[in-house]
């Protein structure tokens, strides 16, 4: 019964931002945005975070703006 093991580990990803009913993501909200970047400062891909296309597009835009304003890093300190 290998199938049982499969179904136990399977869990559908869902967009946390949709779940929280987030309408718009602000580039000034760096605390929220840090959840969507890796420790290297990369933007977390959709396949990992499970965010929907609409919110992922908003995150991307917001992170890029926040980087310009040095609210978020382009890359983390130790890899520079």
């Amino acid at each position: 019964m290998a199938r049982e093991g499969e179904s136990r580990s399977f869990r559908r990803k869902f967009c946390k931002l949709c779940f929280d009913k987030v309408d718009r993501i602000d580039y000034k909200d760096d605390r929220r945005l840090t959840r969507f970047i890796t420790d290297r400062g990369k933007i977390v891909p959709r396949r990992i975070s499970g965010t929907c296309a609409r919110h992922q597009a908003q995150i991307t835009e917001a992170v890029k703006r926040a980087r310009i304003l040095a609210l978020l890093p382009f890359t983390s300190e130790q890899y520079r």
Partner: protein
Amino acid sequence: MKTYETTIIFDPGLEEARINEEVDRVSQSIGQAGGEVIEVQRWGKRKLAYNIRKRRDGTYIHIKHKSPPELIAEMDRRFRLNESVLRHLTVLAQKETPVAAEEPGKGAEAAVAPAEAASVGPKE
């Protein structure tokens, strides 16, 4: 005229009076161009995520304003020339829908919506 949000990062070594002077100058140029300053936010001194011109901190000023589009290019030029500005960014302000959601008439709709989101959310 469009509504913009301009964030300016000033050199942390600048005194408060100098920053006020700079902010006044920006506000004046907006006024002269027929625009309007809606809000000035002072975020104060913040740590930068990475060093800019060897500075670790910066003094953030956030201005929301209505301006003619031509002024944005001129503002950009001035910030570039200004040595005390470490970084600046002007973006179009987003329309404020959250305010409309708080209207009492829409309260009933809002109450139904979260329940739908809970059932729809995990499927997406």
